[in-house]
């Protein structure tokens, strides 16, 4: 029994599918004629290309809208070959796509594309994050416990992104209906001309992940919470202008907050 022979056969077949379209590698021992084998391998390649597009478009919808479906299809296939998935769950694919896009020579005209992809990715991850229920009773700790010994936990999947590009404005422009499209893209152009960076909070609203634009203090604050900082440390970082009471009201109403916990020594 030759186990290494099977391992090598599988490696050769995978390599034949990932590589250029040529006749099958001789070590594969394919039964079919050369033409027939080529047609069979082409069917697998077509499957892989369709899957690459489907998987990445599910996770990077804004990027797809920005570059167009045809370009996105080519990019998805190119990325799939350059950085093949390691997992058998396509929902987990594409972690390296934002960086890969940034380094892609053909994408150099759109230097904001990488950060737009990161925002798509944060939304995708948020919608796959664990479900959690707000612990309303834990708010009582705010009255009874030293803020240095408390931490506020945000809902799973919450993320903060900072960009030197107007990622929230770009994201929003790709979601408006046709009647409002012109005005939305005028805002994008104006934001790009003004070289306006944006920071955003990604949170879940119902089952959908949404983007909330943040000010500097709000981004500092949320980053501290996500890093597990104490309430007092997070407040100090956010600065005197930060309105904690207003934020707390919004966080409870919008279900950003999972609860308040006591920090252990």
């Amino acid at each position: 029994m030759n186990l290494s022979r099977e391992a090598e056969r599988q490696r050769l077949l995978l390599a034949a599918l990932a590589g250029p379209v040529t006749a099958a590698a001789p070590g594969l021992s394919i039964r079919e004629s050369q033409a027939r084998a080529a047609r069979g391998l082409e069917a697998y390649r077509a499957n892989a290309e369709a899957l690459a597009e489907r998987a990445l478009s599910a996770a990077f919808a804004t990027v797809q809208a920005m570059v167009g479906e045809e370009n996105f299809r080519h990019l998805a296939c190119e990325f799939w070959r350059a950085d093949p998935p390691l997992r058998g769950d396509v929902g987990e694919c594409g972690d390296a796509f934002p960086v890969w896009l940034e380094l892609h020579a053909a994408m150099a005209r759109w230097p904001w594309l990488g950060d737009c992809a990161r925002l798509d990715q944060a939304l995708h991850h948020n919608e796959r994050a664990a479900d959690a229920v707000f612990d309303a009773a834990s708010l009582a700790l705010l009255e009874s416990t030293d803020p240095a010994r408390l931490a506020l936990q945000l809902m799973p999947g919450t993320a903060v992104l900072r960009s030197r590009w107007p990622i929230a404005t770009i994201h929003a422009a790709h979601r408006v209906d046709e009647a409002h499209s012109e005005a939305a893209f005028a805002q994008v152009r104006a934001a790009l001309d003004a070289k306006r960076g944006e920071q955003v909070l990604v949170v879940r609203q119902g089952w959908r992940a949404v983007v909330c634009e943040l000010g500097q203090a709000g981004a500092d604050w949320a980053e501290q919470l996500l890093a597990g900082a104490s309430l007092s440390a997070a407040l100090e970082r956010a600065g005197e202008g930060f309105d904690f009471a207003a934020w707390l009201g919004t966080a409870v109403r919008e279900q950003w907050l999972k609860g308040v916990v006591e920090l252990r020594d």
Partner: protein
Amino acid sequence: MAGETAQAGAGIGLRQPHYAELFGAPPPLDFVEVHSENFFADGGAALAVLHQARALYPVSLHGVGLALGSAAGLDPWHLERLDRLVQRIEPLRVSDHSCFARAALRPGQPVVHANDLLPIAFTDAALAIMVANVTQVQERLRRPMLVENLSSYVSFADDSMSEPEYFAQLCRRSGCGMLLDVNNIMVNALNAGANDPLAACCAFVDALPLGIVGEIHLAGYLQADGIVIDDHGSRVRPDVWRVYEHALKRFGAVPTLVEWDTELPSFGVLLAEAEQASALMAKAVVA
């Protein structure tokens, strides 16, 4: 055996465009089937829908990513996620395919996952790999699973046994059952240029031991340029229905899924296909 025939009936795949009709007025179905990997996330809407479906129907978890025939072995992450899903859903059946997908592209490089159902050879070595991997899954899940025969677009000249013989040995040595995809047998027979594809398919069915088939899959196929593709994008073809009837005569009523994954039809058309499977099962039981 994996998959009991006592509760034989027809089921359909759970697909998003049909949610409103399915949950609005749940039709009488014996089970619904989903692709396990679509529910591997920690949470979110998909999982909530699956729990909703589970409250209405038994659920069959059908995987496309375990890559059971991979000489590189199983991905522990994948197995952990599947185990978690099995515990969450308590499925009626758990199944995956007789295929590989995990291998390194070059010696010494990391193992990648093709996310496709790639064909294995029918050799003693490939069988040993499959038996070891299926055993590992069953030990982790603490339950037997079903393994499905593939439609494959290439095959191997050095096969040392027939596919039915391979499945007979796999089931005997690992304790798993077989998910018999009747459409895949037909696709393979057509692609092999069989003189009489129907006879070839019936011979395949006749060569399988009694008692190993725990579920049957039915689907449509696509006749493309020079090749037949198992695309799950149309009604079950008449020739596939005939092989199905032959299988029912041999095995008795077996839980049967109508797979339709692309070019989704109206919910009514899909239900009609499942009803046809149910009617043939009932006929087989009476006969």
